[in-house]
């Protein structure tokens, strides 16, 4: 038997969704304009969108770009972030670059990238890649920096080389932080074009 509190915890996200739809519905009814459909109308349109071949292809293409951009972003960013976290030299080389790029909204880069690469999948994937990379690099960097030195020393005493320490100690020790970065990156990937 679930306690009342646990049950409420389970239901909370659904209640939030319903609440949002409710606010939407009320707002649309009050404003009553052509360009703001009610929540009910929007929900009713979902099956027809998903049933339409054209939009389905578009959605799948978006998802594919997202997956590719996210995948490449993570593969490049985690090693870079970890190396920055463990080497002051690498960190001071990349840090200024990242500090310049980080605050720039990736959508603002879109025009330049489109000039270079056109409007195809490559350009869109690149924007996703950039959006994903920065939080993953940043969190991997912080995670690697926070790894207890004594843990690495213990590994070194067991005979682990510098590369082995990176893969077998820094990576697992920083993993919770890296995953936080990946989650932020995933949100950005979904938000990007």
């Amino acid at each position: 038997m679930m306690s009342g509190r646990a049950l409420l915890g389970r239901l909370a996200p659904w209640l939030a969704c319903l609440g949002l739809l409710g606010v939407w519905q009320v707002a649309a009814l009050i404003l009553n304009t052509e360009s703001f459909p009610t929540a009910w109308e929007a929900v009713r349109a979902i099956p027809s969108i998903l049933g339409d071949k054209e939009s389905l292809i578009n959605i799948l293409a978006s998802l594919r770009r997202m997956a590719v951009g996210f995948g490449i972003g993570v593969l490049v960013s985690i090693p870079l972030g970890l190396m920055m976290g463990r080497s002051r030299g690498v960190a001071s080389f990349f840090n200024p670059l990242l500090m310049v790029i980080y605050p720039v909204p990736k959508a603002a880069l879109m025009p330049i990238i489109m000039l270079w690469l056109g409007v195809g999948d490559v350009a869109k994937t690149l924007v996703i890649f950039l959006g994903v990379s920065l939080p993953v690099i940043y969190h991997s960097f912080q995670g690697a920096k926070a790894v207890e030195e004594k843990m690495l020393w213990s590994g070194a005493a067991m005979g682990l080389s510098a590369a082995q320490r990176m893969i077998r100690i820094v990576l697992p020790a920083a993993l919770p932080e890296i995953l936080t970065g990946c989650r932020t990156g995933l949100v950005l990937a979904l938000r990007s074009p």
Partner: protein
Amino acid sequence: MKLVPSRSNLETEPAAARQPAAAMIEVDHVSQVFRTSGRQDHLALSDISLTIEDGAFVSILGPSGCGKSTLLYIVGGFVSPTEGVARMKGRAITGPGPDRGPVFQEFALFPWKSVLGNVMYGPRQQGVKSAEAEAQSRALLEMVGLKGFEHFYPKELSGGMKQRVALARTLAYHPAVLLMDEPFGALDAHTRTRLQNDLLNIWERDRKTVLFVTHSVDEAVYLSDKVVVMTRSPGRIKEVVDIDLPRPRRRSELLLDPHYQKYIVDIERMIDDTSENELRP
């Protein structure tokens, strides 16, 4: 220096009568300067020379900030001395190695590995087959009193249990020298006493060379053959005191032993002297 009358007339084996072993560790005119941006460079260790014999239990005792841990890190090869050299069996120490096993106050266990996984890590790295490493590790865990906790994770253990795991993890790859950096410093008094007793029992079996850093006078006297008393910044060796108490040592007997008490009082006086010296301009 002679602090207490010789006990060689007693039938129990005195420390001095044990085999005069070869030098395991030599610290040769080692100095360590930490360069700090902005402030003055900090001289942590000043011209330290020390010989640790094979099989000896040696404590480095001093106030916090006297560089005693730094000295241990230099022997471990984790820190390179600014001047001088540390040697192990006559060969200069250039980096960490499985012949010198550290146990840190912070435990430094691998949190993503189980207790058993932590202990097996060293032997596996040394190329020991999985089944064999597991059997050895289970035996070690039993020895440190953690039978039944093999599949726990470090975060599920108390501080004392974590330090037992850390000790087993280090013993598992058979270092010739144990480097213990205030290993019981973070534990409560009761746990600390129990771990001291257990460490002594374990040490009695194979008499590994131990370098043990502590700021507790009675811990140093209770455990050691030799206590190296250090002064505060710059860290220098003030005195090396041979602890000529019979082994195996029992805390309950030692507490009533005037020789033990005298060692503690004498060493505490030495430390007081060094503190007063600091206050002089």
